[in-house]
């Protein structure tokens, strides 16, 4: 059944959260999330006064009284600030600058003075009981199909702690994710779009963030919340869509779900891996925000804004044209690499090494996807340095592009050895034409009566990944014709 979303008056609002690739927001801890756990601390949380009614208070009191929170602390990635044992340090200037860049890329107005706020959280995911957040841009827009999509705000906030497990009143969190800088981009109400279009808008927002070259990549570094409502219905908030490609499906399924119900309730739902959702709680009231008095307001003067404006990254529309014209990428590949987590690394590599841009793009867009699909290769283990080493060797002719998949597969499982060593282990070092010719001669000698195609096949199996295939064909033909 085709759904007419216009007729249904589908309304969506997006909130996109993107982690920044800097140290933490209010201390000097690493945000790498790679180190070992060193301690656990146990805390209770309490209802804090506010504008709560009696009922809310009693319910929250009961909820918190019956819960103990266990916080895992990680070496180098958590300090007393994350433990809620030391006041926050001044805001991370690098992160602030990236957030301001993003706000300006979305054409936002920057406040003259930025005020850090405390947003109350009661699920324990903020060890202090609140998350620090600040608005860095207001009233912006994004162009999509010649329309202006309203960007209501861009804020810079601390990520919350990641949950490990929950059972019988005990909730365990990892503190290494707490306070990783996060940019939140909130759109205005998107009306009259299909789910597919809303997904494209989300993609675009992602591309703009990524164009700064300073955002994190990989699972969990981008999270999207989407509000969905249809004609005559209520607003349902869906939290934590982690893969962009899933968004349109999530919206479609939510519309179908709402259509199937006699009455829709305002609620918050969480996404399952297949795009369906599950109820988590009734829709909370407006978040309670109050000033973070430990951090003085930050003045953003016109000079600062001008300086950042001058250094803004190339807009994605220009980038797309450049990829096609200068780098000779196909339209499809250009768009894929623009959307890729590896956009900044791609650009760095094609600038640094004389290698075919489409080969590099294909590695990031297809090869890594293939590896991920196989399920056996932890692709996220591959570092920027690994890729640089790989393409450096490709530039020098030490490997051929056909062997890249095998090398990356091996490397992702063998972290302590270099790409060079992987190549040695896999015997994938290129051979010279002279060596190739010797092999070809041997094969011909042993298979005198076989046709050329067969000879090519046998040679290929011996030198796969060590020499360009067109060279094999060329040399075999030359030798057979002698």
């Amino acid at each position, binding site marked *: 059944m085709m759904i007419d979303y216009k007729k249904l008056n589908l309304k969506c609002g997006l909130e996109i959260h993107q982690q920044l690739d800097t140290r933490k927001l209010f201390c000097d801890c690493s945000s790498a999330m790679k180190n070992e756990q060193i301690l656990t601390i*146990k805390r209770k949380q*309490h209802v*804090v006064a506010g504008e709560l009614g009696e009922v809310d*208070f009693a319910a929250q009191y009961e909820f*918190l009284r019956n819960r103990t929170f266990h916080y895992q602390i990680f070496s180098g990635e958590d300090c*007393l600030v994350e433990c809620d*044992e030391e006041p926050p340090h001044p805001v991370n200037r690098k992160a602030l600058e990236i957030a301001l860049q993003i706000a300006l890329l979305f054409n936002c107005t920057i406040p*003259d003075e930025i005020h850090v706020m405390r947003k109350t959280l009661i699920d324990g995911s903020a060890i202090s009981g609140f998350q620090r957040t600040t608005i860095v841009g207001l009233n912006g827009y994004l162009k999509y199909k010649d329309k202006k999509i309203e960007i209501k705000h861009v804020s810079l906030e601390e990520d919350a702690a990641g949950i490990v497990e929950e059972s019988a009143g005990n909730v365990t969190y990892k503190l290494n994710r707490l306070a990783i800088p996060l940019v939140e981009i909130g759109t205005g109400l998107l009306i009259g779009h299909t789910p597919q279009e809303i997904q494209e808008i989300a993609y675009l927002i992602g591309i703009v963030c990524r164009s700064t070259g300073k955002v994190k990549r990989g699972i969990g570094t981008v999270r999207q919340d989407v509000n969905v409502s249809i004609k005559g219905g209520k607003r349902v908030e869906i939290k934590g869509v982690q893969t962009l490609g899933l968004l349109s499906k999530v919206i479609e399924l939510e519309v179908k779900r709402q259509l199937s119900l006699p009455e829709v309730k305002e609620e918050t739902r969480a996404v399952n891996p297949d795009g369906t959702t599950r109820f988590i709680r009734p829709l909370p009231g407006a978040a309670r925000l109050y000033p973070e*008095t430990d951090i003085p*307001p930050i003045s953003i003067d016109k000079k600062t804004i001008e300086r950042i404006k001058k250094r803004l990254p190339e807009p994605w529309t220009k980038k797309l044209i450049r990829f096609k014209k200068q780098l000779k990428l196909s339209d499809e590949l250009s768009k894929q690499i623009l959307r890729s987590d590896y956009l900044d690394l791609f650009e760095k590599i094609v600038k640094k090494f004389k290698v075919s841009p489409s080969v590099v793009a294909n590695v990031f867009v297809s090869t890594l996807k293939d590896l991920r699909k196989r399920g056996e290769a932890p692709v996220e283990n591959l570092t920027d340095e690994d890729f640089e080493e790989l393409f450096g060797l490709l530039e020098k002719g030490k490997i051929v592009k056909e062997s890249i998949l095998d090398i990356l597969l091996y490397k992702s499982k063998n972290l302590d050895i270099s790409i060079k060593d992987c190549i040695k282990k896999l015997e994938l070092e290129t051979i010279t034409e002279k060596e190739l010719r010797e092999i070809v001669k041997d094969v011909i000698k042993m298979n005198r009566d076989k046709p050329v195609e067969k000879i090519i096949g046998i040679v290929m199996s011996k030198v796969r990944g060590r020499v360009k295939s067109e060279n094999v064909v060329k040399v075999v033909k030359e030798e057979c014709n002698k």
Partner: protein
Amino acid sequence: MYSERVQHFLDKKRINVGDEVRLIKDKKTYEGILMPRIELGDKDCLVLKLRNGYNIGIKFERNVKIEKLKGHKKLEKFPARRFEQKPNLPKVSLLATGGTIASRIDYLTGGVKMAFKPEEFFFTVPELADIITFKKIRLLSSLASEDLWYKNWQQMAEEAAKELNRGARGIIITHGTDTMHFSSAALSFMMKNLNKPIVFAGAQRSSDRGSSDTVMNLICSAHVAGYSDFAEVGICMHAESSDTFCFFTRGTKVRKCHTSRRDAFRPINDLPLAKVWPDGKIEIMNENYKKVSEGRIKADIKFEPKVALLKAYPGSDPKLIDHLVKDGIKGIVIEGTGLGHVPTSTPEPERSWVPHVKNAIDSNVPVVITSQCIWGRVHPYVYRNLRILDSTGVIWGEDMIPEVAYVKLGWVIAHTKNLKKIKEMMLTNYAGEISKRSDPRTFLY
């Protein structure tokens, strides 16, 4: 407070803090509530609470236009909730002196206010209503602890004695943490024949956050004040970073040893008196304590404020001592290095403290030697320099914490001016401040 010109502008427009306003600057429009200016930042910047709850600052310039909208928000919205006091629970009196622990936050402005009605304590820590009843809650001062001094100690002691004599089962004193161990030492000396618990409690994280240590510290303090057998002055604060249990530690053997951690208060040269769990379990760690009994008590609050605490360090100028003596100081405590050293046989004779210390003592000013090591005991003989210092007639403060020796000296001098008698009293153990033996378990406990 906004700058004069901003305030003038607002006055002219009859706009008050809390009003809903529309602000236009550079063709951009903002709507929200005008907030008061916090102390930090640019006083020319108008603070607006936007509809989404966020605050932003907009610099006031000539082109700023502002108009009043309909709404107005009362900015101080402290919760008012009623709690019933339950009968038949131990009657405890609470004396509030200020500090983080007894403060409430205003959720709109972030401003902090002192709480002093029982309901307000129950609001922060509703659990208290099941543990104790408040016989009386008195706000003695609203001072940060660095601003407290001997007059406040005297007031705390007198009020505590009054409440105990009128039937309180115990006393909780809420106090800023920085100088809490000075106050607990002062009351340890002043409450001479104490027969009930006096518990100091504070907070390292303010009560406006869900993670505040106020809750467990007050709950555990209520258990000590309402149920324990300690007729002692002590400090009840987190024992570890986790919210597991508190230490109740003798008021003369405890010190703030960390600027910000919950478990900042450590016992010094002593074991804590007890571990106290929020469920009421009290595990005695140290048998050396006075037991709860009946009878009237009297606060001996005499105190000589003209005492000083000096630190000896490489390059320190001993002429400071002469200035103090000239200025009429009545007693000096020195935080020496190591076993109690001061610069003594220095290559530059003018840097030696010894003649100056001798001069002070000759002028009838007692000098007490303690150690900046914090843990351990001072000693007069181990090194030659110690023996030289000893020959001036200084008082060796045993294993007293420098801050405790300072408070004790003020209390002692208020009782006698006789140097010999002062020495005798300084070396008398009145409130567990001197331990005869150094228990091997007590270092970094």
